[in-house]
């Protein structure tokens, strides 16, 4: 185990799986010891073909020295890797052995609405003791994942990777191909976590500003500056440390079901190219991923190929996937470090030529603070956007309208802040990654290798991401799911959805059934995604081709935000 203590927040010493471990996974590895000896990577149960038998059940697990019960598929956490082939029609019989209704949603897969696995919209859910047979044709390739769409089962372990092999072979040659699935495990009952957040929204924030921070800032920047800074935030009743609702105080971050001490290890021979398929299957966590000493070439985002772009680091939101190629050339180990966005903890894995080798785990970056631009939006960027909007440019019709002041920017019980002039800078890596000296991936770097599905825009639809942190209410346009009717799209139309984030949190927004074709600020197609991150006070637009008839879910992929109301039904008819 690493000896280095993360700066800032003291993590409780993680103890690792003892005795009773992860059932089927552990069985293949021999006995795991209490000490943190690295284990060789052994292929997890991986299912391939076109017929799959999946069984949802419970399994005792022990990640921290405390025995808990996880929700699992076929006795595995994460659930088994499903390998499909592009063009195949797959049949998945899912049996539910839980005492409660369950479901599986195939995240990012384009399929008929009744195969999408959202109880209430796609089907009734899978009753206890019952089963549901999913059957659909897989016409896409890439890295995806699956998870429960019932209550908090995703938080308790029901998630697994999907890899769809391209019909014509992988465009990027790699000698090894590993899934790196990131998750946030908790020993706490997610119902308790959610109730705690509703009672005290800062419950898990152990990085608030203290009197000592103020004295330090006053000493460094002068008393007047420090006071002015505090005044701005405190008058608004906003907290610049509000980066994650649930932190390392409750979470142990996992890579492929292993704790940092458990150190999942991917083997390679020096000089080989490795394809790492990163999947963020966590419920509430953004990870900042890097492999100190290795450049990563990002070749796919959300399963879809992009023009290769080489970076040192990337942020991956809950539900996003990124495929990267790395080429470790020396006979040594490298650490894969995935810090949580609030720097309250990390997931860790190792790439090594031989099992048992480890590399240094760098200390966590210092805890970032939200910036003025995360609250105010554009400032000078806004002027730029408006100037461009006023120019007569060819193809104006295809440009997103500069954010006209919305009819209502009122606040209220559901909404604690508004952003009058959102920023549209896709090249912002986000809080905590700005100017850190590393080359960090941004959305501006994502360029699809193929043409967009939506050749035009028939209609534009603006939705504001809203919330009230103190009350722990989250919504679109100030209306929680229970208050809002569905968004209706006409079959065959092409819509531009403009999302404006009126909150101080970063939200990964996931539309089921149809791709979200991310656009640049001036309306050019960037990349095809299933989950689009909108930073605080940011405006992001994407095109949606409404070609999938049915009722679909549309929501923030932070599990407790979804539960608290940041969810809409989209009807395509």
């Amino acid at each position, binding site marked *: 185990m690493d000896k280095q203590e993360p700066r800032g927040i003291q993590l409780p010493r993680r103890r690792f799986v003892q005795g009773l471990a992860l059932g089927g996974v552990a069985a293949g590895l021999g006995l795991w010891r209490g000490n943190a000896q690295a284990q060789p990577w052994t292929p997890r149960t991986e299912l391939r073909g076109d017929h799959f038998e999946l069984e949802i059940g419970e399994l005792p697990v022990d990640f921290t020295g405390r025995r808990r019960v996880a929700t699992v598929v076929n006795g595995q956490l994460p659930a088994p890797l499903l390998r499909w082939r592009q063009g195949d029609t797959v049949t998945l019989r899912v049996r539910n052995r839980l005492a409660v209704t369950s479901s599986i949603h195939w995240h990012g897969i384009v399929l008929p609405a009744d195969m999408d696995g959202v109880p209430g919209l796609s089907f009734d*859910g899978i009753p206890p003791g019952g089963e549901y047979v999913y059957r659909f044709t897989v016409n896409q390739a890439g890295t995806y994942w699956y998870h429960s769409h019932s209550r908090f089962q995703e938080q308790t372990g029901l998630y697994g990777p999907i890899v769809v092999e391209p019909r014509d072979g992988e465009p990027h040659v790699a000698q090894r191909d590993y899934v790196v699935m990131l998750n946030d495990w908790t020993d706490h009952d997610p119902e308790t976590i959610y109730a705690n957040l509703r*009672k005290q929204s800062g419950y898990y924030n152990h*990085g608030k500003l203290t009197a000592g921070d103020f004295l330090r800032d006053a000493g460094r920047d002068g008393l007047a500056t420090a006071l002015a800074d505090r005044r701005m935030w405190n008058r608004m009743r906003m907290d610049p440390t509000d980066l994650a609702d649930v932190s390392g105080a409750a979470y142990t971050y996992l890579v492929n079901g292993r704790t940092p001490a458990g150190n999942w290890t991917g083997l390679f021979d020096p000089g080989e190219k490795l394809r790492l398929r990163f999947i963020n299957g966590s419920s509430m966590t953004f990870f900042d991923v890097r492999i100190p000493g290795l450049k990563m070439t990002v070749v796919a985002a959300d399963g879809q190929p992009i023009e290769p772009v080489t970076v040192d680091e990337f942020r991956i939101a809950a539900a996003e996937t990124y495929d990267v190629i790395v080429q470790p050339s020396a006979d040594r180990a490298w650490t894969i470090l995935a810090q949580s966005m609030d720097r309250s903890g990390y997931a860790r894995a190792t790439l090594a030529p031989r099992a048992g080798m480890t590399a240094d785990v760098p200390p966590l970056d210092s805890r970032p603070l939200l910036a003025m631009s995360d609250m105010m939006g554009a400032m000078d960027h806004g002027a730029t956007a408006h100037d461009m909007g006023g120019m007569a440019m060819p193809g104006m019709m295809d440009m997103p309208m500069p954010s006209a002041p919305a009819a209502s920017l009122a606040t209220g019980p559901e909404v*604690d802040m508004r952003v009058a002039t959102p920023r549209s800078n896709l090249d912002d890596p986000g809080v905590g990654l700005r100017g850190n000296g590393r080359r960090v991936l941004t959305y501006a770097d994502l360029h699809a290798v193929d043409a967009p599905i939506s050749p035009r825009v028939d209609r534009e639809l603006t939705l504001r991401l809203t919330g009230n942190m103190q009350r722990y209410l989250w919504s679109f346009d100030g209306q929680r799911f229970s208050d809002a009717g569905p968004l209706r799209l006409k079959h065959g139309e092409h819509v531009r959805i403009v999302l404006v984030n009126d909150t101080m949190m970063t939200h990964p927004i996931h539309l089921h059934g149809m791709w979200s074709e991310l656009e640049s600020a001036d309306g050019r197609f960037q990349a095809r995604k299933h989950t689009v991150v909108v930073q605080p006070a940011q405006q992001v637009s994407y095109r949606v081709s409404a*070609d999938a*008839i049915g009722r679909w879910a549309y929501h923030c992929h932070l599990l407790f935000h979804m539960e608290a109301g940041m969810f809409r039904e989209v009807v395509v008819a």
Partner: protein
Amino acid sequence: MSGVPGVRIAFALGVILPASTMAQVIDMQDMPGKPMSHRVDSTPSAASTSVDHDHHDSPVPQLQSVPPNDHVAPAPPQYLMQDMAPAQMASTMQMDDTAPLGMLMLDRLERSRSTVGDLATNWEAQAWWGNAMDRLWLKTEGERGRDGSDGRLDVLWSHAWTSFWDWQLGARQDFGQGPQRQWAAVGVQGLAPYWFETQATFYVGGQGRTALRLESSYELLFTQRLILQPRLEMNFYGKDDPHRGVTSGLSDLEAGLRLRYEISRKFAPYLGVEWTRRFGEQDAAEARPLPARETTWVAGVRLWF
């Protein structure tokens, strides 16, 4: 839920043939040619490693020059969910953003000792139950000392009013020494700018009595667990009530400082000091008139569930 898994499976099985057929049709309509296989080497160009975020040297693909995508629209569903009543929807989805919740909070449960040696037990507690918009509140505050107890209980319906404020409507019962007064209550509770937790409640009682209670507190973090809480409470009354030790105008003012250590968020012992100032003439008939100025030391716990 569904007592007919067989039917569901039949639907599911039924989807395969039409689904793949339809998919092919759409594929052929949308795709002028077969998607090209573009095997590219993943070696990055030097330009793309640039740290400069403002310039992207990689060319933005033009629609004409890039290959078509391999997207295929999905077949329509064989089974379309019908609309449900909101309650049924919430239960089917297992997702309910209107679900009620309850909380019990003992802000202050403390033993106090005044500088003249009087010992007392003080409490301030609140409980609420309800959803995000409407809640039923119970609030109680009081003191039990050598000369008996003195306290109040408020029962309030609270409704979310603005981003940070709720208004509250209800009743208050005074108990302990002296006559048991009843009041109707209307007030606001919320978070004032600069993070002051604040309550202001106006009361109307019998015989033309009126009262106003203001309370505000702040939290100053020395560390993530060691927290100093200054607290100010003021009680105003419309007219004298000597039997309850109340004078018209600003009747009493309490200013406290409590330093707590959060062993957990929900459990924090504290030590503190409180200054009390009572205004107006004390009733000479009282056996032991309350001192006009009093300093007390307190030790207690703050906990919530």
